[in-house]
């Protein structure tokens, strides 16, 4: 008895509160955006998304309680096994999977579908945490980052094969963990520079980018005129840059699928087609923008209710929040996510156990990536990438996976 009350006291209340608020808000939003106000429907019918989500929430709470009750060492000990098991589950999809919205990512069991990809997010975090936590020999340290990237590359390749680009990109979020664990900061700068050059190349054309790179080279050659090693490095980087620009264009034209290219073109404003390619993005912005400061009021959103916004209960659920709760509601939601992510980082840093810290940074990255990409796409900052908004979007797999992901961290922090 004494032991148990002590246990519950050590649970991080802040994270649990953020979780409860987000999940509750999620259910009410799903109710609003999926309820057909023009038809009398039974609340208890399982054809309603909101009734199903209620079941998902109930089972998620059960999962959370189970996680809080079982020994946290289990996760540390079996992390690699769990990771491999999740990878196998993803591979299983190729054999018994069902295709939904063009992505072969679902395993159907009765009326419910499971998306193994969702679970791979926390299993990868577990595996990476274990990987960084183990003492490394010097030889192993030499290839540390190559090995680390393999942990995320495997799920990425499997998911890409299932044509679920959005979910694959999520695994890039572990770079945040890598950075914290010592990956050179250049990787971030180069990453940002690469994104800038890519956008520029796609927005204008490769000639512009090459001119800019050449100018930068000239600048650095002038600055480094007395140091021949630096000059060599500058020239080498320049060559890589040029190759990257050329590859960007070729990759853009030949690797991306048509609809993906279209999403990027519309975001960059190269294509104006509000009734066609631009429709979803445009309607999504209209939904959020029309909410104004105070919103239209709960259950009063027209954009989401009348199906102008696509996927209004899953990937585009933020539209319903923006439309019905306005800037006030939207701001509260982004604040909650930001607070939750920063809280996870603070707790990770406080914890002396490197496994916990690495797991914490891993999941902070995943939540952050989902949060930024999902909301960014609904407000027209980013191209449309179909990933759910954690804790809020409709969907069993997503909610279960994020619940497990968060509560393992809460449990790990207990000790």
């Amino acid at each position, binding site marked *: 008895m004494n032991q148990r009350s002590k246990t519950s006291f050590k649970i991080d209340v802040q994270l649990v509160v953020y979780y409860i608020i987000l999940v509750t808000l999620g259910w009410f939003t799903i109710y609003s955006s999926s309820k057909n106000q023009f038809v009398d429907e039974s609340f208890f019918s399982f054809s309603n998304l909101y009734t199903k989500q209620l079941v998902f929430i109930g089972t998620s709470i059960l999962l959370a309680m189970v996680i809080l009750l079982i020994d946290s060492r289990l996760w540390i000990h079996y992390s690699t096994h769990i990771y491999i098991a999740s990878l196998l589950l993803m591979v299983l999809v190729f054999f018994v999977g069902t295709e939904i919205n063009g992505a072969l990512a679902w395993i159907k069991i009765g009326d419910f579908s499971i998306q193994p990809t969702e679970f791979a997010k926390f299993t990868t975090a577990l595996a990476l945490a274990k990987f960084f936590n183990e003492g490394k020999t010097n030889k192993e340290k030499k290839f540390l980052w190559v090995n680390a990237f393999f942990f995320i590359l495997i799920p990425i390749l499997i998911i890409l094969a299932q044509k679920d680009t959005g979910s694959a990109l999520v695994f890039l979020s572990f770079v945040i963990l890598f950075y914290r664990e*010592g990956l050179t900061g250049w990787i971030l700068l180069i990453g940002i520079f690469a994104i800038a050059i890519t956008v520029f190349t796609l927005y204008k054309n490769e000639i512009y980018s090459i001119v800019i790179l050449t100018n930068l080279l000239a600048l650095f050659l002038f600055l480094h005129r007395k140091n021949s090693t630096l000059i060599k490095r500058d020239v080498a980087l320049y060559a890589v840059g040029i190759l990257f620009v050329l590859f960007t264009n070729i990759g853009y034209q030949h690797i991306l699928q048509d609809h993906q290219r279209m999403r990027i073109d519309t975001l960059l404003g190269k294509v104006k087609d509000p009734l066609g390619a631009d429709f979803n993005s445009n309607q999504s912005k209209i939904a959020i*923008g*029309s909410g104004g400061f105070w919103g239209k009021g709960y259950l009063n959103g027209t954009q989401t209710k009348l199906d102008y916004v696509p996927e209004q209960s899953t990937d585009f659920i933020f539209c319903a929040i923006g439309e019905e709760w306005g800037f006030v509601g939207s701001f509260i939601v982004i604040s909650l996510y930001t607070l939750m992510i920063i809280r996870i980082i603070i707790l990770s840093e406080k914890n002396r156990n490197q496994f916990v810290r690495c797991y914490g940074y891993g999941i902070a990255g995943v939540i952050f990536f989902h949060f930024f990409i999902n909301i960014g796409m609904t407000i027209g900052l980013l191209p449309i990438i179909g990933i759910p908004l954690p804790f809020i979007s409709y969907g069993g797999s997503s909610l279960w996976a994020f619940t497990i992901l968060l509560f393992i961290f809460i449990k790990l922090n207990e000790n």
Partner: protein
Amino acid sequence: MSQLYQKRQYTIIGIVFVTFIVLGFRLFYLQVIDNSFRQSADRNALRKIIEHPARGLIYDRNDSLLVYNDAAYDLMVVPNELRTFDTVELCRVLNIEKKELVKRIEKAMQWSKMLPSLVAQQMSKEDYGYLQEKLHRFPGFFVQNRTLRHYPHPIAAHILGYVGEVSREQIEKDPYYQMGDYIGLSGIEKAYENELRGTKGIRVVLVDVHNRERGSYKGGIEDVTPIQGVSLWSTLDLELQKYGEELMHNKRGSIVAIEPESGEILCIVSMPSYDPNLLVGNVRSKNYGILSSDEVNSPLFNRALMARYPPGSTFKLANGLIALQEGIVTPTSIYPCPGGYRMGSHTIKCHHAGSTNIYSAIQISCNTYFCKAFYNILSNRTKYPTIQKAYASWEQYVNQLGFGVKFDSDLPYELKGFIPDTSYFDKKYNKAWNGNTVVSMGIGQGEASVTPLQMANFMAIIANKGFYYKPHVIKAIGSKESPNTRFQKRYETGIKPEYFDAIIQGMEMAVIGGTARSAKIDGIQIIGKTGTAQNPHGRDHSVFVSIAPKESPKIAVFVLVENGGFGSTVAAPIASLITEFYLNREVKRKDLEKRIIDFQ
């Protein structure tokens, strides 16, 4: 290693925080600064469906329905909401060629991309039902309920008027109207458009992304129920109007009957006419084309208000009144008549010989008497220094008697006839003219022309002994108890009532033993005056005016039958039958009635 990179947590927290700021600002921009999204959302989801009110009904003076409404269904299009659809199917339902459909949609686009325009008018109930069911397959189209005018009795077409689609100019003038709306284009429909059109309603409905209506917006809080146009009570007597048109069967001309004490028009016939039901709905433009190109009958031409006839002998009554008022003659003054009025080499003939006073002059329609009287009015140099002054004074009397001016009442396209002014004669005769130059005006010939309405009103003035209310066709608006206040002003003529007594007595004598004997009715004291308006193009026009009963008159009638010959031949019997019908509600003289109807 971990200690080494501990400070990197701040970079990471920084990235998270910057992201938070970026998202926050973007949201603030979308939701607070940029206001355009609210409109976009409303444009998406809210469709304002105009609910057209039914036009007001029109009753006759005895509560019989003259005009009512029928349901009709129009197909509308909002060009902006169009998506690809099955043109073949729609063309089949509408029974039009694809080219025609494309043309109509292009026309709609030119007018407005956002607002609904008419694509097809008045579909049948079956087509309406069929389309309504499949409408979700035709995004951008919707069906609007409308009403069409219907006339239970095919009479009084000119006065009732017709409705048609509004023109671009009318839309620009009055924002009430939208493309495809109906507006009164003539007659009562035009004069009382504001009363009849009612108030449009608006139904705000939610439309989903598939163009399906999904219910009313906020439970109909912004809906406005259409209010039907106000009903009107006409001054017309349906039965009398019908009877008048029957009597004028196969003739050209006009009947105007007025209730003197109020100026209410009891019947106003212009022949040839047409069935008002011809100018309703989608057959309107076709039929209008046929009617307007009929140059032989010109059925659209409203003779009662627009024709200019020489007034003929009936105008002698006006000159008699002016001569009495001006003191040129007294009721007992006698002018000798040698069988004509001689001026130099020219003579205006008379059909009799002997002396006349005003009574007998009216009774036998003596040209000499009225030529002399008119000449003397213009030659009164003690009162007027020049003929111009004298004529201007005469003209003023004539205007006060309702000639040469418009009443501007509720009648459509009324013309004012023509009473020449002094400058007209100055120009024509190079200022060298005298009473004899223009003397034919004294007996209603010459330059002057009047409309049937003016003549009927003149009879009302005589019946009232000196005043009139503007002749009009609508007596009550909204309910029978709320009178039309526009026509309650009494207009004075400036001629003393006692002078009218002389005129009335002359007209009575004309019926008893003069030119107007054919107007006599047993049991009704009718007084009248014939006129034979000279027609340079053919047989003279038969004209008759009458008032009955002599004591407290109830009906003043003007009848003109083109090429009908003498006034007593056909016009007088018609006036007599109209009077009998109106006062007795039945006509006993069936033989006369038959002879008149058969008269051509």
